């Protein structure tokens, strides 16, 4: 199930629950899978100095990011026995409460999906050049910092 070349991980705007459902449904024909693990990153309406974040606007160094996503995929398939793996990240505006990151790993057995999913998410956070601009209700902004 390895891909030979980087594919585009980015989607414009928020990732919808329907998109996730469609992705899950596509796996029902893969009857060697016994366990799926899905991570969803959701934009928080954090309050900073009495102002509330209403959205994050994502930009990326897209070519490098897609290459990094590809490297992470390859490394993950090398480390863990997975049936498949899917990664989607938003670009552009994602409102508070909406989903900006969708990582989906599947395997015959459960132990490996827990380990693999956390690995993939941490690798994305650390190594993929994506930048979040947090927009407040009054249209002022600050740059997101991952912790």
């Amino acid at each position, binding site marked *: 199930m390895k891909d030979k070349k980087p594919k585009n991980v980015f989607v414009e705007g928020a990732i919808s629950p329907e998109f996730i459902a469609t992705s899950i449904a596509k796996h029902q024909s893969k009857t060697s899978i016994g366990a799926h693990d899905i991570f969803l*990153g959701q934009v928080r309406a954090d309050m900073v100095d009495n102002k509330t974040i209403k959205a994050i606007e*994502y*930009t*990326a*160094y897209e*070519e*490098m*990011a897609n*290459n990094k996503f590809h490297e992470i995929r390859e490394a993950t398939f090398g480390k863990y026995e997975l049936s498949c793996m899917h990664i989607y*990240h938003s670009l552009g505006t994602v409102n508070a409460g909406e989903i*900006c*990151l969708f990582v989906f790993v599947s395997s015959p057995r459960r132990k490996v999906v827990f380990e693999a999913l956390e690995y993939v*998410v941490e690798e*994305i*956070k*650390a*190594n*993929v*050049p*994506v*930048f*979040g*601009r947090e927009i407040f209700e009054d249209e002022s902004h600050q*740059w*997101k*910092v*991952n912790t």
Partner: protein
Amino acid sequence: MSTNIKYFGLLAEITSCREESLGNSPSTVNELLELLFEKYPGLKEKDFRVAIDQQLVTEDARITGGEIALLPPFSGG
């Protein structure tokens, strides 16, 4: 040979552009940064990394063409 540089996130706000071409050609990343700090003093206090052709490099890396990018801390997800 001119040097093409891309700026991302916060850095693009400081430079007021996302991409530019420098007339003179610095031969190392250190030389490039000296030029840029002069042009954009605000860059100096920012935390960022440099990539050449999508590979992160250190300050002593040589520049022999390719695409240079200045990348603030990643904040995906």
